[in-house]
C-alpha cells in the first residue's frame, strides 16, 4: 500500500511538474462552459470564439476548457481547479457562474477572470456582455410584418433582467411597426430541456400565435414551428438546419473578436478590469441571413440593423409605456444601461404577468 501511494505521489508530482513547465512556455487561457460545446446554441458560440482565439494567438497561448459545468457549488470547484492548474486568464461563460467566479477571483489575485453577462467586477475580474436586445428589436419588427394575427409567442427561460430585456425589446420593435401587436410569454423555467421547450411551443401555437421566438437553448421549438408551418427565430446560433423553411433569422453570438482583443491585452500586460457591453456595431452579435420572408421585410430588417449599427436608432427610445400604462420614457429619451441591466418590468403589449 505504501509503495502504491508513493508511486501515485511520484506520478502526480511528475504530471504537475510537466504541466508547470509547459505553462511557462505558453500562457494558458481557460474557459468554463455551462453546456456541451456542441449544444448548437449558447455554449457552441463560445467555443467557436475559443477556436478563433486559438487560431489568432495559437503561437503564444494554449486554451483549455471545461464543459457541462453545473451552476452552483460545482462551478466554484471547477473554476478553482483551473486557477490552480496554471490558467492565467479564465473566461466563465454563464450568468450563473457569477458568485463562484467572484469567490475564486478573490482567492487568486494574480489570475485574471472574465465573466459573461454578469454585473459583479473586481480588480482582477471583468465582465462582458452582448447587446442581444438589439437583435431582438429587429426580430420584433420582422414578426410584426410577418404575423397575420398580430400575436407572437415567446418561450422564456428564467425571469432575470437579461430575458425581460429581450422580451421588451421584441415588443418595442414589433409595436414600432404595428402599434396593436401583442406577445404571449411562456416561462419554461429551464435553459435546456428539448421536451419542455417543445411543449411550450405547442402551447403557444395552439393558442393562435403565428410567429415564435425563444430564449432557451435547444432547437426543439424551431422544430415544432416547422412541423406546424409557422415562422420562428433562432437563438444564440444559426438554427437554420432545424427549420430550413421556418427560420426568419437568428441572433448569433460571435465572441471571437472579443476573446482575441482581451487575450492580447492580457499577453501585453495591459489587461484591466472593465464592464464591456458591445452590440451589433462591434460584431459581438450578428444576425443570421434574413430568410423565408418577402423582400420588403428583408429590406426593412437590414435598414433597421444599419441604423442600430450607426447609433442612429436606440431600441429603447420613448415614448414608451410600462405594462401598467404609466410612462417609462418620454418622447425622444433613451434608456440608460443601468435600467436595462436591472430590468424588472414589462413594457406595454406583453400579455403576461412578470414573475417576481
Amino acid at each position, binding site marked *: 500500500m505504501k509503495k502504491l501511494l508513493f508511486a501515485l505521489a511520484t506520478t502526480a508530482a511528475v504530471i504537475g511538474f510537466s504541466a508547470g513547465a509547459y505553462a511557462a512556455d505558453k500562457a494558458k487561457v481557460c474557459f468554463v462552459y455551462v*453546456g*456541451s460545446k*456542441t*449544444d*448548437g446554441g449558447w455554449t457552441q458560440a463560445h467555443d467557436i470564439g475559443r477556436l478563433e482565439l486559438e487560431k489568432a494567438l495559437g503561437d503564444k497561448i494554449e486554451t483549455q476548457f471545461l464543459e*457541462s459545468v453545473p451552476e452552483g457549488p460545482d462551478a466554484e470547484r471547477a473554476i478553482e481547479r483551473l486557477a490552480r492548474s496554471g490558467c492565467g486568464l479564465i473566461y466563465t461563460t454563464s450568468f450563473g457562474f457569477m458568485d463562484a467566479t467572484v469567490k475564486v477571483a478573490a482567492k487568486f489575485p494574480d489570475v485574471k477572470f472574465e465573466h459573461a453577462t454578469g454585473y459583479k467586477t473586481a480588480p482582477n475580474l471583468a465582465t462582458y456582455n452582448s447587446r442581444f436586445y438589439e437583435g431582438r428589436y429587429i426580430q420584433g419588427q420582422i414578426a410584426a410584418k410577418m404575423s397575420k394575427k398580430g400575436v407572437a*409567442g415567446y418561450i422564456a427561460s428564467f*425571469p432575470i433582467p437579461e430575458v425581460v430585456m429581450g422580451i421588451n425589446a421584441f415588443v418595442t420593435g414589433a409595436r414600432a411597426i404595428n402599434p396593436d401587436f401583442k406577445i*404571449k*410569454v*411562456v*416561462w*419554461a*423555467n*429551464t435553459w*435546456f*430541456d*428539448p*421536451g*419542455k*421547450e*417543445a*411543449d*411550450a411551443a*405547442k*402551447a*403557444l401555437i*395552439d*393558442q393562435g*400565435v403565428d410567429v415564435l421566438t425563444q430564449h432557451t437553448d*435547444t*432547437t*426543439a421549438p424551431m*422544430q415544432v414551428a416547422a*412541423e406546424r408551418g409557422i415562422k420562428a427565430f433562432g437563438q444564440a446560433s444559426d438554427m437554420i*438546419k*432545424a427549420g430550413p423553411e421556418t427560420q426568419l433569422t437568428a441572433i448569433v453570438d460571435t465572441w471571437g473578436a472579443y476573446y482575441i482583443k482581451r487575450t492580447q491585452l492580457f499577453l501585453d500586460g495591459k489587461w484591466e478590469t472593465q464592464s464591456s457591453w458591445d452590440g451589433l456595431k462591434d460584431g459581438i452579435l450578428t444576425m443570421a441571413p434574413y430568410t423565408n420572408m418577402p423582400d420588403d421585410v428583408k429590406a426593412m430588417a437590414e435598414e433597421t440593423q444599419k441604423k442600430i449599427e450607426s447609433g442612429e436608432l436606440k431600441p429603447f427610445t420613448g415614448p414608451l409605456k410600462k405594462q401598467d400604462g404609466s410612462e417609462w420614457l418620454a418622447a425622444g429619451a433613451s434608456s440608460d444601461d443601468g435600467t436595462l441591466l436591472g430590468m424588472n418590468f414589462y413594457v406595454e403589449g406583453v*400579455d*403576461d*404577468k412578470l*414573475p*417576481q
Partner: protein
Amino acid sequence: MGIFEAMLLTIITAATPLVLAAIGELVTERSGVLNLGVEGMMVMGAACGFIATQATGSPYIGILAGIAAGALFSLLFGFLTLTLVANQVATGLALTILGLGVSSMIAEPYLGQSGIKLPQIVFPVLSDIPFLGPVLFKQDLIFYLSIALVAGVNWFLFKSRAGLKLRSVGDSHASAHALGINVIRTRYLAVMFGGASAGLAGAQLSLVYTPQWAENMSAGRGWIALALVVFASWRPWRIVAGGYLFGAVSISQLYAQAFGIGIPSQLLSALPYLATIIVLILISHNRRMTLINTPASLGKSFVPDR
C-alpha cells in the same frame, strides 16, 4: 381541432415516456431490485434510437435499437448487482452517470441533425369518433405499445403463474429460493425488462417527442418515472393515472401561461410535483394497503447459500 384536443395530444406525448419507463421499473422493483439507473438507460435508448434511425432511415429500426440499448445497458447493472452483489443504490446512480456520459460521446456526431419523426398509425373507423378519435386512434406505435405494455404487465403480474413467481421473489427471496425458484434468473429478466422499457421511453424522446438528439435530453424524466412507481404503489394501472396526472398538470401550466392567467410561473412549474406529493400522501394514508403492495425484499441483495 379544438384547444382541448390539442392539449390532450401534447399531454399524451409528454406522459408516454414516463409511463413506459415507470412500468419497466415497476416490474424490476416487483422482483425486489431497485434500479436507480432509469435516467441513464433512458438517455442511452434515446441516443441509440436516434443513431439507428439516422443510419437506416427507419424509425422502426430506431425503436428496436432503443429497446436493445436499454436492455443491454441494464444487463451491466444486473451483472454488477446480481452476480457480483454490488450495492444496488450506488450501482444504479453510477449507471445514470455512465449513461449520460456514454450517450453524449457516441451520439456527438448527430448533434444538430433533424431526425425522422415516427409516423402515426391511424385506425380507419375509430379515428372518426368525435373528440376521442383523433386523440386516441391517430397516434404513433410507441403510444399504443405503452398502453399494451401496462395491460400486459398487469395481466402478467396478477394473473399468470410466472408473475406470481416474480412477485414472490420480490417479497421474500429466501422463501422463493427454498421453493426452487431461480431468484437470480428471475431478477435478471426483470432488470432487462426494465431496461428495455426505459430504452423504449428514450426512443420516444428522440423519435416522437422531439425528433433530434441533444445531450442529456431525458432532462430528469427517469427520476420522475422512479417516483411514479412509488406513487403508483407498485400497481400497473396507477402508473398510467400518475403519469397522465403529472403530464396533464405540467402541460396545463404551460397552456395557462400562454393564456395569460397571471399566476407566477414558478408556482405553476412546481404544480406537477405538488400534485404528485398530495396524491402520494393520500395513497400512503392507508398503511396496510401500502405494505401489501410494497415488495418486501426491495433493494436487498440475494446470495444463494449453496
